[in-house]
């Protein structure tokens, strides 16, 4: 055997890669399938702060102007939360019919709740809304890079200006640290952070007075205690529930974490309230009904009265939302004021926003054309906020010309009061015809010839202003 050198090794490896046998099955398809199958089980956002939701366009073809004169207006379609016996629109059958939801734009329904804020601070850091502090104050983080929160700011929607509340420095010496949920307490604002890109079971807690100042690290936790899900803050303690259930607390002055006896299986909703179903989009508890609501301050327990056939019922201190059959339902925790919500089915958040509102996406599909392609109304709002107190619905978000679109909710630990979007941002699918030879293929196959169509979807525009709906500005009974 002749003498071998490193060049031979390089050649052997490259040659083998070039000659690799074709994999069994198509990898991209296999990945898509596997992700789809387990999306219910594992659809947890790795950064708890990643809260932009997306409504996938319902139309299989390009959306058309169903209401050419309706630009900017709400869709004039009727019957919201009205007669429970009225038939619910089935987009797959209702050729030419309109959805049975009456949705006016939020700017008409609750004009005081809508404001536009700059998308960036003066130094270029991007704003990410957290929640409303009051009817006219929005709590924001400013991010130096994607999801890297570095500063807490308060935006005054009346004065149209922002003030810095606190820097969010991160613990010294910790690499890859990211702030996660921010919680607004009566006197202070607390948050937790972790290092999501490594496998360390570690998290820490911070607190700053609500009036602003220098943020202070309360303490650090490790192991199962670091699987933080939601937090709460009082004058004396920071509280948190963990993903497996159970609530801990730590004094704001620091010290050891302490498990709160009797909280096995409980998850924080919004301090002092906790419930007995897993938070967020974890999935396993998806269809289970919440059975109780616990007040961890008073020890008081409220039993939820769920109707037969209800699924996924989630209650705040006053209102519950869930599903029954193909419809969404709303009721009070004791089962009173129960209604079905025809035409509203795809719930985007599972706990009531600001303790009161439900948030649904809207398909926008109004029927099918002669060729059987779904027709999507490009002017339909992307999503709908429903208020059980008044029964009103308000359209939010901006639909892409090609259907679907993106809309964000505030990233607070407790259910947020903020929904926001960028009016100017749109997703654009661009296709171009390329020579097949530019597409990678195995060198063992005969070289393909001809043209192929390659499409990709990109986001265009936007980045200047955010339209923000602060549900704290919706009058309590209006």
């Amino acid at each position, binding site marked *: 055997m002749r003498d071998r050198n490193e060049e031979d090794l390089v050649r052997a490896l490259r040659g083998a890669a070039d000659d*690799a046998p074709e994999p069994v099955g198509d990898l*991209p398809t296999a*990945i898509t399938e596997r992700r789809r199958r387990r999306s219910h089980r594992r659809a947890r956002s790795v950064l708890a702060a990643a809260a932009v939701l*997306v409504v996938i366009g319902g139309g299989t073809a390009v959306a058309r102007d169903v209401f050419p004169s309706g630009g900017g207006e709400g869709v004039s379609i009727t019957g919201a939360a009205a007669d429970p016996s009225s038939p619910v629109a089935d987009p797959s059958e209702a050729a030419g019919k309109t959805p049975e939801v009456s949705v006016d734009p939020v700017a008409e329904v609750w004009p005081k709740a809508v404001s536009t804020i700059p998308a960036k601070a003066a130094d270029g850091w991007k704003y990410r809304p957290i929640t409303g502090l009051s009817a006219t104050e929005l709590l924001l983080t400013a991010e130096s890079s994607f999801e890297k929160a570095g500063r807490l700011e308060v935006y005054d929607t009346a004065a149209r200006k922002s003030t810095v509340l606190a820097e969010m420095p991160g613990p010294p010496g910790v690499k890859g640290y990211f702030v996660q949920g921010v919680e607004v307490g009566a006197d202070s604002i607390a948050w937790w952070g972790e290092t999501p890109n490594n496998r360390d079971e570690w998290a820490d807690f911070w607190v700053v007075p609500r009036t602003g100042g220098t943020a202070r690290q309360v303490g650090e936790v490790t192991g199962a205690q670091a699987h933080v899900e939601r937090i709460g803050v009082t004058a004396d303690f920071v509280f948190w529930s963990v993903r497996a259930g159970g609530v801990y607390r730590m004094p704001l002055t620091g010290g050891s974490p302490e498990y709160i006896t009797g909280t096995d299986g409980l998850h924080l909703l919004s301090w002092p309230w906790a419930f007995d179903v897993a938070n967020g989009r974890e999935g396993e508890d998806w269809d289970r009904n919440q059975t109780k609501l616990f007040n961890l301050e008073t020890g008081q327990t409220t039993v939820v009265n769920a109707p037969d056939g209800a699924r996924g019922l989630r209650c705040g201190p006053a209102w519950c939302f869930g599903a029954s059959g193909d419809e969404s339902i709303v009721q009070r925790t004791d089962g009173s004021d129960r209604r079905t919500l025809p035409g509203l089915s795809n719930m985007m958040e599972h706990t009531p926003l600001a303790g009161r509102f439900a948030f649904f996406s809207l398909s926008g599909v109004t029927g099918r054309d002669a060729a059987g392609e779904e027709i999507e109304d490009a002017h339909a709002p992307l999503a709908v906020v429903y208020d059980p107190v008044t029964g009103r619905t308000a359209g939010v978000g901006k639909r892409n010309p090609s259907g679907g679109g993106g809309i964000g909710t505030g990233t607070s630990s407790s259910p947020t009061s903020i929904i926001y979007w960028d009016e100017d941002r749109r997703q654009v699918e661009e296709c171009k015809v390329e020579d097949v030879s530019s597409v990678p293929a195995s060198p063992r196959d005969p070289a393909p010839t001809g043209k192929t169509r390659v499409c990709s979807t990109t986001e265009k525009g936007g980045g200047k202003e955010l339209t923000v709906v602060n549900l704290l500005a919706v009058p309590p009974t209006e």
Partner: protein
Amino acid sequence: MQQIRPPNRPWDVEFTDFVAARADALYRYGYVLTGNAEDAADLTQEALMRLGDAWPRIRKRDDPEGYVRTTMARLHISVWRRLRRERLVAAVPERAYDDRAGDDTGLWNELKGLPPRQRAVLVLRYYEDLSDKEIAEILGVSRGTVRSQAARALDKLRVRVTALETGRV
């Protein structure tokens, strides 16, 4: 009628584009790492699944391709660690699939006789063209270990180390 379900994730769109564009190259890398098509497909799939989960934080902060290649290298050595006993039995170089075009040295087949970590070190060094420092970071070992593993592997394969070695950091 749509059921209540988790919202679709915005990053899925771009993730799918990434997979469509890079799956082939990643599979080939997997093939060089593992030495067989079945393991390569498994490894690539698993690493891409993990990338998919991590996509929202990877995409804008890091380099997704680097992330997935690192995941593949780490998965490869961990899987091999677990299956080591069986694999060692089957590790005798097979001559049947020999003399492939471009490799008249038999090196490809002899690579199959190497322990996974040694193989990974060679693939990262000679296929991925990484420095020993980068390899150490990817595999989570010291630079000294990378050097000694590489030296042992090269010795076993009877590869003469030339001036290339001196330039390594």
